[in-house]
């Protein structure tokens, strides 16, 4: 059954990708790419990657689609049918594809347990992590403890992307004043939607916190929780307008928190150094190594969550401010 679902989902994915390649209405393309990420998340779940499915569900189907839609609002909806020559591109693609398929012929079969991938470090993670770290979710323990450096790097990449978008899409004071004077009427008439969203918002926030702190025991963790939290704030922004939301999440606070998360992560590492261990070696944080690991993972995941949430909210705000600017000033 698992294999059957796998095959069907993969075929759906190819069909969706082909449709994406063919369509010229970018709005439809973005919506199909939303379906594409829903499909890929189901596929990840089918292949036992629960944490990845979680992330793809919240990132790919949620935030990514919204960002694409916001930028479509700024750049226009249709792709021009220009006179590109597909034959050359098609030739290159077919040649590369044939070579890659030839390369797969030697690969060990899908799902076989004696693949080289499974012989290296994975058995150690699976067998020893319970004794060394004491967290049932092996993905969390590898993410936050065994490969802590790596995750620090990824968090920094997200932080840097936040800085990049902030400096590319700056907002003038004039735009802000304009937005405050005029009530955003976009969703004003959708009363039912507004009421339901107001009711759902606390639910989303609580769920984000659950995902954040339950990540040791089930699927979840800082990345997912941050994105879900941001999605809640984005829902509120879409229905109640930017200036209302910015009263709760002012720009300065978001920037501060984005930096704070990275600092918390790095700070835990430095504390470990000061207490006599290696960088990000949580064993020394408490008397008992396992307790130290628990505390370290909790703090590090919190740092990741804070950074991801504030950077995602920040990026969405920047794009929405830009649409406000275009609406009132660029004609």
């Amino acid at each position, binding site marked *: 059954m698992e294999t059957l679902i796998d095959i069907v989902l993969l075929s759906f994915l190819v069909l969706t990708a082909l449709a994406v390649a063919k369509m010229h209405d970018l709005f439809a393309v973005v919506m199909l790419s939303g379906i594409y990420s829903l499909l890929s998340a189901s596929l990840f779940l089918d292949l036992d990657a629960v944490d990845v499915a979680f992330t793809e569900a919240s990132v790919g189907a949620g935030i990514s689609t919204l960002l694409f839609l916001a930028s479509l609002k700024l750049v226009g909806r249709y792709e021009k049918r220009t006179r590109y020559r597909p034959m050359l591109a098609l030739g290159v693609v077919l040649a590369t594809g044939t070579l890659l398929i030839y390369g797969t012929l030697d690969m060990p079969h899908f799902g076989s347990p004696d693949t080289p991938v499974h012989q290296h470090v994975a058995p150690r993670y699976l067998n020893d992590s319970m004794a060394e770290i004491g967290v049932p979710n092996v993905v969390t323990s590898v993410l936050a403890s065994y490969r802590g450096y790596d995750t620090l790097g990824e968090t920094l990449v997200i932080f840097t992307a936040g800085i990049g978008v902030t400096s590319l899409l700056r907002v003038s004071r004039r735009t802000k004043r304009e937005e405050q004077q005029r009530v955003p009427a976009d969703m004003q*008439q*959708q009363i*039912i*939607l507004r009421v*339901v969203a107001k*009711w*759902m918002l606390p*639910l989303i926030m609580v769920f984000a916190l659950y995902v954040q702190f339950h990540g040791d025991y089930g699927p979840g963790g800082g990345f997912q929780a941050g994105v879900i939290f941001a999605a809640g704030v984005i829902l509120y922004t879409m229905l109640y307008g930017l200036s209302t939301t910015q009263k709760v999440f002012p720009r300065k606070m978001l920037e501060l928190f984005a930096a704070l998360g990275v600092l918390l992560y790095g700070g835990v590492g430095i504390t470990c150094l000061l207490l006599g261990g290696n960088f990000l070696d949580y064993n020394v944080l408490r008397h008992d190594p396992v307790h130290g690991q628990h505390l370290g993972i909790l703090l590090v995941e919190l740092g990741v969550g804070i950074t991801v949430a504030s950077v995602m909210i920040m990026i969405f705000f920047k794009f929405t401010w830009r649409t406000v600017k275009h609406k009132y000033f660029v004609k």
Partner: protein
Amino acid sequence: MIELLLDMLSWVLLLSGSFFCLTGGIGLMRFPEFFSRIHAASLTDTLGASLILMGLMLQAGITITLAKLIMILILSLIAGTTASHAMAKAALKSGMCPLDQVDRSQQPEIKAYKDKS
């Protein structure tokens, strides 16, 4: 005995839920225009989803899984219906008209609604 009964009941719920989902899917595919499609899809969606989730609940027993299933049920009941409402409203506002009302679209109250929005 009771377990067998619960099992059978959950099978019945799962199967009928799948049946309603399938009807909705066929309706979504076969109906001629947007409003009849949304009618087919959203109604069966609510019913089919609730039936399937209830079937799963009977399998879950009284655990944390049950609580999560109830949460999904509440969410799908509220979010699904709201989303359908918003979609239909947006489509109506954009000037689309149900097929059997094409001629009536010039009627005063529908016109007034459109002008207002």
